[in-house]
């Protein structure tokens, strides 16, 4: 009996019991669809978070004034020094392996134009910010001031602010007022959307020195330090820390890598995906028990058929093969349908939430199909063996 004939025979048997066949195929399909959909969502969540973080610039060190640590009473000399533009320039000039340095000062104030005004975060930055944060300009240009130059009265609007204040007319070249200061609009940012709760479209950029003067600040909010690759993060971090400690004569800055945050999140979400896969595998084994049930019922319902086949000269191996072929056909059909259903489900989900990059990872597809077939064969073997051990005479009586 060739494999093709065996399969044809099994297919005939499955077609002969449509209801039972479709129920068990549905059982397997639901299990597989669950695995595919759940792992797709889990993996999508991880990709989403990773992408959000890397959209903030991935090879970045962030220098924050003050020390993040728990201390008791502050001892003498424990003064937190300001983080200044001079510090930033010093990093740029004296630390090797630094691509660019972007100081940031932040305040909130109202931006006025004509009779409209909008209170938004004001970011004092330099030209380096654009590359470090990977932001793009929709019209006009970004700020061109460097750390060496003075302030200047130029301003770049976020996409949302531009829309709210100018209602479609071009803001380029207009003079807007922030507090008592006047600025010329030189650019409008392309929309970037929200990232980790912060709206990157609802803000304005002005030169950092102007911002410090306007808000009467002495300390920067952050200094972003970009390095050429992730490998450089650790050594540059040490050098930056040492330099600033020297300049301040105290250990009073914190340098964090975005990368560290990222990998923490990524591993948390990896665990989440694994947990989802665990849940999915439970549903898969339920599907497996379903197959076993179906095969057992098939064997008991079809004892007479087994008896007939044996009377006609079928060997035990041939009967076993026929039932196994049925189990394999059942589980692969169910598996493929489940894959299709899972993929379709994920696609529908993505249609509703386009920003969520949910797609089933290859390993889960492979595992799901592998488990489906393994479970089908495994749970098919036992009833099939029972079938072949049936005494042909008892089998023929059919009870």
């Amino acid at each position, binding site marked *: *009996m060739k494999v093709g*004939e065996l399969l044809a*025979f099994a297919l*005939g*048997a499955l*077609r*002969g019991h449509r209801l039972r066949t479709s129920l068990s195929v549905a059982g397997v399909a639901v299990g597989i669809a669950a695995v595919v959909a759940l792992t797709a969502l889990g993996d999508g969540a991880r990709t989403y978070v990773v992408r959000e973080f890397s959209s903030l610039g991935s090879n970045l060190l962030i220098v924050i004034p003050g020390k993040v640590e728990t201390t008791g009473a502050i001892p003498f000399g424990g003064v937190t020094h300001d983080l200044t533009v001079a510090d930033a320039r010093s990093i740029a000039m004296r630390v090797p392996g630094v691509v660019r340095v972007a100081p940031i000062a932040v305040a909130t104030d109202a931006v006025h134009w004509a009779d409209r005004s909008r209170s938004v975060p004001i970011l004092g930055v330099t030209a380096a910010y654009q590359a470090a944060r990977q932001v793009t300009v929709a019209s006009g240009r970004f700020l061109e001031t460097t750390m060496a130059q003075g302030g200047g009265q130029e301003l770049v609007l976020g996409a949302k602010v531009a829309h709210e204040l100018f209602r479609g007319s071009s803001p380029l070249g207009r003079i807007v007022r922030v507090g008592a200061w006047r600025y010329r609009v030189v650019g409008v940012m392309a929309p970037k959307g929200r990232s980790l709760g912060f709206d990157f479209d609802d803000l304005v950029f002005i030169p950092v020195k102007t911002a410090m003067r306007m808000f009467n600040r002495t300390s920067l909010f952050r200094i972003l330090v970009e390095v050429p690759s992730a490998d450089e993060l650790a050594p540059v971090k040490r050098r930056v820390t040492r330099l600033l400690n020297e300049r301040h004569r105290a250990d009073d800055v914190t340098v964090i890598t975005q990368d560290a945050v990222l990998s923490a999140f990524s591993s948390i979400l990896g665990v989440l995906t694994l947990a989802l896969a665990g849940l999915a595998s439970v549903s898969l084994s339920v599907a497996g028990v379903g197959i076993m049930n179906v095969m057992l019922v098939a064997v008991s319902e079809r004892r*007479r*058929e087994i*008896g*007939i*086949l*044996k*009377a*006609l*000269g*079928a*060997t*035990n*191996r*041939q009967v076993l093969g026929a039932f196994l072929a049925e189990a394999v056909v059942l589980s692969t059909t169910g598996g493929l349908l489940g894959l299709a259903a899972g993929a379709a489900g994920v696609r529908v989900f993505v249609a509703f939430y386009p920003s969520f990059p949910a797609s089933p990872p290859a390993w889960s597809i492979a595992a799901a199909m592998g488990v489906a077939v393994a479970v089908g064969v495994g749970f098919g073997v036992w009833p099939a063996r029972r079938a072949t051990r049936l*005494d*042909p*005479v008892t089998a*023929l009586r059919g009870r």
Partner: protein
Amino acid sequence: MIELENVCRSYTVGDSEVHAVEHVSLHIGAGEHVAIMGPSGSGKSTLLHILGCLDRPTSGRYLFRGRDVGTLSDDERSHLRQQEIGFVFQFFYLLGRLTAGANVELPMLFAGVGGNERKRRAEEALEAVGLADRIHHRPDQLSGGQRQRVAIARALVMRPSLLLADEPTGNLDRSSAEEVMGLLEKLRGGDRTLIVVTHDPEVAQRAQRIIRMSDGRIGEETA
């Protein structure tokens, strides 16, 4: 061709032992037409199952064409059934999901006969039972007599030397029964032995030998 020596078959049902066949010794030659008669429970079906290698004797010896069937493995017995023995049952035992042609092809499928050859021989066999035009019909589209003729075609398609029929006319009306018996007799002959189990005297009368059974034992034999 068939040699039974002191064959017994007993089952354990609950605590008690049921002796279905007791001390049966029998010789049946090649090409004979034998009827086994007896009331239900007399052990005639069990005897037929033993003769057809579907069941093993508890004790005694069964020689089929000189081979001791009791010593054969499951696979060897399957092979023997496949090549040498054709069965016809009271309830036809056709697979309902298969066409008449596919049912007739089944034994050849297990014997490893190639696809084209299977088709050709199935057609021949159905033609021999006068159902060539029903090859694509399913059993539920056929009358009882036609179903039994399909079963006969299936039993004969491997050209067995022994044809066993267990109440072949039990579920048929008079004229169909007549047809089926006529067919079985026509297909016997040469070296092919036909053994029919029945409780219908009219069917039994057609045989050369009638073996009567009661309580698992062989009684008087008439020719």
